[in-house]
Structures are given as structure tokens and as C-alpha cells.
């Protein structure tokens, strides 16, 4: 049987890796900082997949982002997904040539389906992760837009014309829990049940291994992710993996 996955998501902005809390950003460190504080050569023993997101593409740091991606992918032999500001086929190619296996698309899945279709045709839907940031307003979920920092479309409306033939997985991030370490907003997943076992990655809110475990144990979730750069620092992933493995059947190395 296919195994559920533990994913580490790195958020990158203007040359630095950042910690995001409810989508406000704190710069933590550069690549040297990351390599010093996380044992990257061995990190793949404790996580099953790596996602790297260039979260403020408007700062025009795409080249720098690709060079970081290239360096990280040289020594990590697990699937790597990358995205942020993917607005052309050319950028997709560049990201894939820099060592990513899959791309992560956010705004184009809502705003430019033509582009998404073209990309899906070239690289295959299994290589595309659709990413959604969800915000809870008066007990209803809304899709949060990273560029305008507003939530205009309700999740129900979004789901009405969602074409799951265009990507292979969905990455759901809770804006409300993002970076808080209070645990996942598991309720988000309920709305996606009608997609019939479509692979769901949950993100936003994991602060410790118990939170990761709560996501893994949910039958509608296929992978759990954390982008918390400080909560799993040092050998944090190693320790988390040990605790998770005692309680959940993850891939063993």
C-alpha cells in the first residue's frame, strides 16, 4: 500500500528562508543558515518529500531561487517540488531543470486555467501540485489570494469549477493556523471529500509531532507538511520521525 508522507516546506523570499505567521513574514536565514541548522545531507532520512516555495516572486528573485534549488537538490534524493510565481511554461522548465520533480501552482489554478492546461499537457498532471490558502471567515472557508492579500472567492464556489484532471495533488494551507504551531485546521479537508480520494497535503499550524500525527491519522489526508523553520530545527525532524514511526506506518529507511 502507498504510504503517507511527511513533507518539509521551505519558504523563500529575497535570498532568505522565512518563517510565515498568518502570512506575515520573518526572515530567518540564508542557505548557509539552513545548511548549518538543518543536517541537510541526512534530512532525507526523516522527511519523505521537500517543497520549496518562492513566496514573493514579485521581488524578482527567480534566478536566485533556481540557484538555491539547484544546490539543495544535489544532495537530497527524495521528491522535490517547487513553485511560487509560476506564470509561464518557461519558468516551469527552468524550475524542473534546476532539480525539481514537481511544480506547485497557486494563483494560476484560479486565474489562468489555460496556462495550467498547457503546463499539465507538457509535464503531466502527476507533476503538478495545486496549492490553496484557505481562510475561515464566519465559519465559511474562503480562498485567500497571496497577491491582493484578500479572500474574495468562497471555497464552495472554487470547488464548483475545479478540474482535478489538471493536477495530481492539492496542498491546503490554513491562513489562520499558518506559523502558529497550534495544530492543523483539519476541518478544511471535509470540503474535499467529494473529490473521491484525491491526494490531499495538509499544511499550516503543525508545531510538534503530535500535530503531524493528527494529520497522518485522518483518512482523507495523504501527506502532512510543516513550514515551521524553527520548531523542527537541529534534529527536530529526526526526533519527530522517531515518535511518528512508533505510532504510524511511515516509509522506513
Amino acid at each position, binding site marked *: 500500500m*502507498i504510504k503517507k508522507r511527511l513533507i518539509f516546506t521551505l519558504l523563500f523570499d529575497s535570498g532568505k528562508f522565512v518563517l510565515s505567521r498568518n502570512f506575515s513574514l520573518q526572515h530567518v536565514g540564508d542557505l548557509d543558515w539552513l545548511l548549518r541548522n538543518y543536517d541537510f545531507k541526512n534530512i532525507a532520512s526523516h522527511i519523505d518529500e521537500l517543497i520549496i516555495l518562492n513566496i514573493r516572486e514579485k521581488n524578482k528573485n527567480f534566478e536566485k531561487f533556481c540557484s538555491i534549488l539547484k544546490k539543495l537538490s544535489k544532495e537530497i534524493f527524495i521528491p522535490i517540488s517547487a513553485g511560487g510565481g509560476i506564470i509561464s511554461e518557461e519558468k516551469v522548465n527552468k524550475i524542473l531543470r534546476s532539480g525539481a*520533480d514537481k511544480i506547485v501552482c497557486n494563483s494560476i489554478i484560479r486565474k489562468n486555467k489555460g496556462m495550467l492546461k498547457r503546463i499539465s499537457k507538457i509535464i503531466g498532471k502527476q507533476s503538478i501540485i495545486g496549492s490553496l490558502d484557505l481562510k475561515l471567515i464566519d465559519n465559511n472557508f474562503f480562498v485567500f489570494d497571496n497577491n491582493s492579500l484578500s479572500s474574495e472567492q468562497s471555497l464552495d464556489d472554487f470547488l464548483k469549477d475545479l478540474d482535478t484532471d489538471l493536477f495530481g495533488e492539492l496542498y491546503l494551507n490554513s491562513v489562520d493556523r499558518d506559523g502558529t504551531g497550534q495544530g492543523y485546521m483539519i476541518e478544511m479537508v471535509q470540503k474535499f471529500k467529494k473529490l473521491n480520494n*484525491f491526494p490531499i497535503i495538509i499544511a499550516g499550524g503543525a508545531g510538534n509531532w503530535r500535530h503531524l500525527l493528527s494529520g497522518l491519522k485522518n483518512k482523507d489526508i495523504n501527506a502532512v507538511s510543516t513550514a515551521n523553520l524553527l520548531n523542527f530545527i537541529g534534529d527536530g525532524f529526526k526526533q519527530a520521525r522517531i515518535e511518528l514511526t512508533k505510532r504510524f506506518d511511515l516509509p522506513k*529507511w
Partner: protein
Amino acid sequence: MKKNITIIDYGAGNLISVQNAIEFLGYKSIISNDPKIILNSEFLILPGVGSFYKSMQKLNKLKITDAIKKNISQNGGKILGICLGMQLLASLGTEDKKINGIGLIKGKVIKLEKITKKILPHIGFNLIKTDYEGGLFAGLNQNKFFYFVHSYFLKIEKKENFKFSYCNYGGNFISSFESEKVFGTQFHPEKSQKNGLQILKNFIN
């Protein structure tokens, strides 16, 4: 030790990841689509993601198909096909339209939906089983988890001199095969952590 390793470039797949993994193991490799280089390489790696039909057309057009066959039959080279690359080593592909494969193993490539009701593509880490030890799996323990991304599988007509491993995803399918000179993995060793690196190491040694 110096090895003559060529990663075959026909415009499909994650060549860089494969090259990174080979380099991590301490070997140099070249990425090439030159039939002369392919003909004379000690170790060939055929990666691939994409369509069987289009990839085969490209390999034929670049005269790579003949170079591979001649190298394996006359020059003593070994080949490892990865994912689509493994499937291309078969005699027949049925993805899109029917087309002959490279034909180093007798079998055809068919849709996974014929054997499983589960969601496709089959993506993620899955456990494989072998009924033999050594070979590609030398040095591995029972936790043989590997990373898969595919919607098709290889169905073998004759077992001949090959040994196989199997994976289950709603139905059993061949996850790898090996003979003295011809090797294939449906999974991605270059994305399967230390298990995968060990497979690549075993192939080269």
C-alpha cells in the same frame, strides 16, 4: 574507480537528478544523445517521464535504439531503465498508439487501471517484494520502500532469464527486473533516498 557511465538524453525525464545521484556515489557520468557514445558505454542509464510512443519515436529517430541494442548484444554494456525508461526496454508499448519498444525484454506496457481501482497515477512511496537476494537489492533490508510515479505497468510474456520484484497497488505489478545485462526499475531510485542510491550503486558495481 573510473566507470564509463552514460545517461541517455532524448528530451524526457529527470536527467539531472539521476546525474546528481551518480555523482553522490562518487562516479562521473555524461548526459548524451550521441549514438557513438551510447554504443561504447560500459553502463547506460535510460531515465524517462512522459509518453512511450513519443519517446520511442525520438529514440528511433536519434538512432539510439540501435546503438543500445548493439552495445548490449556485442559490446558487453549494461543498461538500467528507470520508470518510462524501464518500460521502453520492453517489446511493445500500448500507451497512445501501439509502437515497438527497444525489445530487450519480452513484454508489453499497459494501463494500471486494468489491474487496480485505486486513484491514478500511482504516486508515492510503496513497498516492494522480491523472491531473491543480491543483484540490484544487495545490501538492502526488508524495508524496500521506493518512490513511484506512473499510470502504466509492464506485463511480461516470458520470464526467460530475468528476476523480478513486485509491488502492490490494488493489484500486483512488476516493480523491477534484472538479468545479467538488462535492468529496469518502475520506481525512481534517484528519488528513493538511501535505498535508491544503493540500487544505483549495485547496478554500477
